[in-house]
């Protein structure tokens, strides 16, 4: 039986400090987080961070948790998220979610948190300066920053099966979850417009790196949960999305495909002869006609391969249900939306203007090309590309399209606002978030799989949370209601 897919999405935002004589992105990112976290910050506990552990069974020497400077600004939020400075970017790691729709909501809540941070940061920096963030993945000059997805996978599933079935899936899923980009970079062939922000940056099939020679399958083995039972598949090929349907399908379809691998449901495999060049060739062809070679001598387009995955997923759901895919309602919504976008991509992708990011951006840019007679190399198009992702509500082109009624939404905005502060009720993020809400001064540190409490007497108490599906609202609501101090809570937990 496939494990219920717990999903978490982490997004590094592009950041600019405008009006500063010597703009420092680390400082700008720190200002944002400090501005948002107005109460006493709760630190992140790095004890369980092992980014050098490799899923293939070895640890890389010299791999360290993030730089010491980032310890300075590292906050845990009451919605269960982690908000911190990673390298030179503000990063929002959404809380663990139990279905694709919830995941989409907490990803969107992250955008609202960044927007509020930017507004609050105005009080912390000199007049005339402004911190601006962009939810994109590239500066168009060869520098990329990531939007990573994480999926809880059964440790018993052979890593090789994940590599075999996920590689062609990741190469082809960009046709619905790409965020679109003007031009190419990182030595890729020239093009006017491509489907994905990230495709140009993938140079290996499998590997541990995330910052150079990026692999399609990342082998980081750091489950943040019981390592005997679980693996966390760390997916680095995705783009950050603004369109809710794109985010929803990105995580929803990936979760179902992982479930099919865990349940050994594949009756055939699609081995690409060259997955790395295929990443680029799929991205570089908005007409979706590019044919990919398969190892059995046949060939298929990205769309045809996605239809194969879809058909198998439909059959899987009919036979096994949606228990591991976020339940009946969400699982069916994933399949309905998946089929609908593949059908539209096949007949005329323009039908998905306002539904998928790359189509929406491409259509907007084509309208400009036509109206203003622009060449694709015109700086105005590159500007529109970047500003589509501007997180400031009044400057974001995406938000402009939302307000004009041009974007199809899946979420209720009122619920998104609640998700900025309330944790998802269905995972351990609930316990983390509620502890912070109730006793912020007693939570000394927290990370994904534990919290450290100061109960007023030595020593500090560490509460392990190795099971992502424990510590939910159902498990702990009464505990929070009945305990009036953190000490009582610890006593209750250990009794």
């Amino acid at each position, binding site marked *: 039986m496939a494990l219920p897919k717990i999903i978490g999405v982490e997004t590094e935002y592009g950041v600019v400090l405008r009006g500063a004589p010597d703009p420092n992105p680390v400082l700008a990112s720190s200002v944002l987080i400090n501005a948002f976290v107005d109460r006493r910050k709760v630190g992140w506990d790095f004890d369980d961070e092992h980014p050098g552990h490799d899923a293939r069974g070895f640890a890389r020497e010299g791999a360290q948790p993030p730089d010491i400077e980032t310890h300075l600004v590292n906050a845990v939020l009451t919605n269960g998220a982690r908000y911190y400075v990673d*390298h030179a970017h503000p*990063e929002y790691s959404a809380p663990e979610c139990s279905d694709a729709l919830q995941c989409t909501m907490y990803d969107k809540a992250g955008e609202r948190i960044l927007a509020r941070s930017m507004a609050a940061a105005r009080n912390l920096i000199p007049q005339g300066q402004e911190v601006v963030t962009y939810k994109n993945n590239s500066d168009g000059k060869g520098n*990329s920053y990531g939007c990573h997805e994480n999926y809880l996978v059964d440790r018993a599933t052979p890593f090789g099966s994940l590599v075999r079935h996920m590689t062609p899936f990741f190469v082809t899923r960009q046709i619905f979850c790409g965020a679109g980009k003007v031009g190419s970079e990182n030595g890729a062939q020239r093009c006017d417009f491509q489907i994905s922000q990230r495709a140009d940056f993938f140079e290996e099939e499998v590997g541990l790196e995330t910052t150079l020679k990026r692999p399609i399958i990342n082998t980081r083995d750091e489950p943040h949960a019981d390592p005997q039972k679980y693996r966390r598949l760390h997916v680095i090929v995705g783009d950050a999305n603004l369109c809710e349907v794109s985010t929803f399908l990105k995580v929803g379809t990936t979760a179902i495909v992982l479930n099919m691998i865990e349940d050994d449901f594949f009756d055939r495999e699609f081995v690409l002869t060259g997955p790395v060049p295929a990443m680029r060739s799929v991205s570089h062809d908005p007409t979706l006609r590019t044919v990919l070679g398969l190892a059995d001598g046949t060939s298929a387009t990205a769309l045809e391969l996605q239809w194969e995955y879809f058909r198998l997923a439909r059959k899987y759901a009919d036979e096994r249900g949606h228990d591991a895919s976020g339940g009946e309602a969400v699982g069916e919504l994933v399949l309905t939306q998946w089929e609908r976008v593949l059908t539209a991509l096949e007949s005329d992708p323009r039908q998905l203007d306002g539904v998928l990011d790359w189509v929406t951006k491409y259509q907007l840019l084509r309208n400009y090309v036509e109206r203003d007679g622009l060449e694709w190399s015109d700086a105005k198009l590159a500007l529109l590309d970047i500003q589509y992702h501007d997180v400031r509500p009044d400057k974001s082109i995406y938000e402009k399209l939302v307000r004009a009624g041009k974007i199809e939404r899946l979420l209720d905005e009122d619920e998104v606002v609640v998700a900025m502060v309330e944790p998802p009720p269905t995972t351990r993020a609930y316990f983390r978030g509620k502890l912070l809400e109730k006793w912020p001064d007693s939570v000394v540190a927290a990370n994904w799989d534990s919290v450290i409490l100061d109960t007023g007497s030595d020593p500090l108490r560490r509460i392990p949370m190795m099971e992502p599906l424990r510590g939910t609202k159902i498990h702990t609501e009464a505990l929070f209601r009945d305990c009036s101090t953190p000490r009582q809570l610890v006593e209750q937990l250990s009794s």
Partner: protein
Amino acid sequence: MPERERKQKPAPREREETVEEVSAPAKQGEKIKEELDDLLDEIDSVLETNAEEFVRSYVQKGGE
């Protein structure tokens, strides 16, 4: 907003009946185009002022 002033297509005079047939969708097409123009104008009004300078200076450090 110079793009708002649209040139009127000269209306064909002969064959009244075909004009009858195409006029409804044509009108709708005009309306869509007008709406699109308004939207692009509105986007233009929030765009950063110097595109070339903005794009040149948008440089990020690699992340992840």
